[in-house]
């Protein structure tokens, strides 16, 4: 990480914006810490190695893990990195920094409300709960605070997009004939995708789930709200992924010693994500009754074509890294690999993240395969898959990116690069063990989201090693991941105590093939938004119409189940309800 004397850091040039980015990262990392704690509790619980909570509370911990990591950690990191990218690439402050601070405050407030509703589930004195998991399908019901918090959070992200579009419009007035700088282009296209994607969840929460949890309506149509959830629930994975892509395209080639191979192809990739991300959500509903096979087939075809931008990314990113390695003196067909800066945690973290993304991509193709999906749907295979994509490609890239970005946001050196290097390698190793065990267990039919995968009436037929061997692998992997998270957080905390210094600035070089090599139509954001909306209407109008025609807007939905509010009548469950803190103390003692 050679620094470039004379290049002022982001924190020096844009102190107020840097402070916003640091605050967004702070929230992201607090969520990462709590989410990781929830993760290790689950890994040890379901493998029956250490049980700190009753099994009935497992689902509250699982909800906390899911919501904090895939909503709070990822999206707060995203808004931080996007605020940095748009300011840096347009070389321009937001029109009104108070507005910037307002959307960050709204997002924080929303997260706090939702988080409070979830955590209440393990506090018996508080009559609230939200153990509905990240996929909050009706008629399982959460406390109204859960839905209200989500709504406030969403509005915050929408205003963040408004802020970035306004910054860009201001820039365009002064640079009417210039191409949109690449990072700004990535931020704006990602936000267009987000606006389209969040329509589904916003309608579901505001018109159905929130009024229902407040008692204004008696029941909701479960299939309708489920379909609206997945309208949002698939594109949101690209919302997690695209900031990682932004770092892979614009930062990783530089730390590899070179520059981006092709700016036009990067733009094409982001446009493809705008067009194809949303009309695919029904691929999460291949197993749903009430949706015709034809609609499922359309979602499957769109999903398969969504492989294209990721395959193009694999080419461009690897080509850019190879270019960097050759700039550093690497030679040979594969010998250039040795010339890469493997001792740099930022580079190694992103490279390992990319490698895991390839593996996750392959298991994702199995999920996407409509009829092959029968074998793996809702088994442990699925979390095995997304711990490679969001849990590694995204999370590990964010951590590695932080190692590169943090000194420029604080004017302080990283506390320890060797610890950082160990941290990213540990993440890779932990995830390799855990996700391998999950994939294999899924093929045997072991379900996801269950506190006790061992059943009384039957045993899972495994080919070799048995379920206990898989459990050990899973628990070991989960433990390594938890240790890795602690190393990451403590390294950053110690970095805060480093003395401030100058000379930590980094410059991002222009691409080998610049935007002038691409047609101007690529920058026509209105055109791409329009086509994206048309594709969404084509993919969703008929299935949604058919669901509403079959069962109506509000049902038949069955009664609401505020699961934790009405303790279950099954024998043994109530006996297990005890204060988790007391139980934790007993275990420690």
């Amino acid at each position, binding site marked *: 990480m050679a620094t470039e004397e004379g290049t002022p850091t982001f924190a020096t040039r844009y102190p107020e914006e840097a402070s916003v980015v640091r605050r967004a990262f702070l929230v992201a990392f607090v969520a990462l810490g709590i989410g990781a704690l929830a993760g290790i509790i689950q890994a040890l619980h379901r493998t029956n190695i250490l049980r700190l909570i009753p099994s009935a509370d497992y689902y509250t911990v699982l909800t906390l893990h899911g919501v904090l990591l895939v909503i709070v950690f990822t999206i707060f990191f995203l808004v931080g990195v996007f605020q940095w990218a748009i300011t840096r690439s347009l070389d321009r402050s937001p029109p009104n920094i108070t507005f910037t601070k307002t959307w960050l405050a709204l997002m924080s407030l929303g997260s706090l409300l939702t988080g409070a509703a979830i955590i209440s589930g393990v506090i018996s004195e508080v009559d609230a709960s939200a153990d509905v998991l990240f996929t909050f399908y009706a008629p399982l019901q959460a406390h109204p605070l859960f839905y209200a918090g989500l709504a406030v959070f969403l509005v915050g992200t929408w205003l963040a997009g408004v802020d970035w579009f306004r910054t860009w419009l201001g820039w365009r007035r002064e640079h009417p004939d210039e191409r949109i700088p690449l990072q700004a282009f990535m931020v704006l296209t990602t936000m267009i995708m987000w606006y389209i994607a969040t329509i589904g969840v916003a309608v579901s929460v505001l018109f159905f789930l929130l009024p229902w949890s407040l008692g204004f309506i008696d029941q909701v149509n479960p299939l309708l709200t489920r379909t609206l959830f997945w309208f949002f629930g698939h594109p949101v994975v690209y919302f997690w992924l695209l900031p990682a892509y932004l770092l892979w395209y614009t930062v990783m080639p530089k730390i590899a010693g070179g520059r981006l191979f092709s700016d036009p192809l990067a733009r094409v990739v982001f446009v493809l994500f705008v067009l194809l991300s949303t009309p695919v959500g029904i691929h999460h509903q291949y197993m749903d009754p009430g949706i015709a096979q034809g609609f499922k087939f359309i979602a499957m075809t769109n999903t398969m074509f969504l492989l294209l931008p990721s395959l193009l990314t694999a080419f461009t990113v690897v080509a850019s890294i190879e270019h960097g390695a050759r700039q550093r003196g690497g030679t040979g067909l594969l010998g250039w690999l040795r010339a890469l800066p493997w001792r740099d945690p930022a580079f190694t973290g992103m490279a390992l993240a990319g490698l895991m993304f390839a593996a996750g991509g392959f298991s994702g193709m199995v999920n996407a395969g409509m009829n092959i999906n029968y074998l793996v749907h809702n088994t442990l295979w699925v979390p095995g898959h997304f711990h490679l994509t969001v849990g590694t490609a995204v999370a590990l890239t964010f951590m590695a990116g932080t190692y590169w970005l943090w000194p420029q946001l604080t004017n302080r050196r990283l506390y320890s690069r060797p610890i950082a290097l160990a941290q990213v390698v540990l993440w890779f190793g932990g995830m390799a063990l855990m996700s391998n065990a999950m994939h294999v267990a899924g093929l045997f039919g072991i379900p996801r989201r269950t506190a006790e995968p061992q059943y009384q009436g039957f045993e899972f037929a495994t080919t070799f090693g048995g379920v206990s061997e898989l459990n050990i692998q899973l628990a070991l992997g989960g433990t390594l991941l938890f240790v890795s998270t602690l190393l990451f957080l403590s390294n950053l905390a110690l970095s805060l105590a480093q003395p401030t210094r100058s000379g930590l600035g980094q410059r991002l070089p222009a691409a080998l093939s610049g935007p002038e090599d691409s047609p101007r139509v690529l920058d026509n954001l209105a055109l791409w938004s329009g086509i994206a909306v048309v594709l969404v209407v084509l993919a969703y109008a008929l299935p949604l119409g058919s669901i509403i025609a079959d*069962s109506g807007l509000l049902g038949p939905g069955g009664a609401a189940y505020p699961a934790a509010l009405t303790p279950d009548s099954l024998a043994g469950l109530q006996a297990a309800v005890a204060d988790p803190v007391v139980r934790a103390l007993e275990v420690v003692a």
Partner: protein
Amino acid sequence: MHIHTYEKLWLGLSLLLITGFVATITYGALGAGVEMVDDSGETVDPDALGEHPDFADPGVEQVGPNEYDVYVVAHRFYFEPGSSTQGFAPITVPANSTVNFYITSADVVHGFGVAGTNANTMVIPGEVSELTVEVGEPAEYGIVCNEYCGSGHHTMEGLMQVVPPEEYNGTGSQTERLGGDS
């Protein structure tokens, strides 16, 4: 727009791979006949399943020389029939027959997965999942609820027995229906 030769090649291969995937799925649906769970099942009122002609008394019913309909209601936290650990009869069908499952939920969203096979569906209140399975040699399969359905989700399991035909016919209680009065 300038695209590198290798990149064009890569783009071509990527499109070929994608087309190949779509083709294999299409073959699976049309050639091998893997049909998806779809909207062919009726809609029902989950609060009034007791008045439904088939779900009021769910179980196994012979509908052809070698064909059986199985009606299952998923409840928090048991399958009726299926959950033998909670006093319901296991789902029992004769070997080498065609089995049509009709599954619905009396309360929340559940899953119905026969462990180690690709028999798998979501169970959504108000909807009936239809699933046809060709069962082979006698065997015993675990059934799991693979969709989170509340704090007792992990206790929700069932059992499916594929028995030799003579054993199936030989058991008086299983000739017509089972599970309904358990």
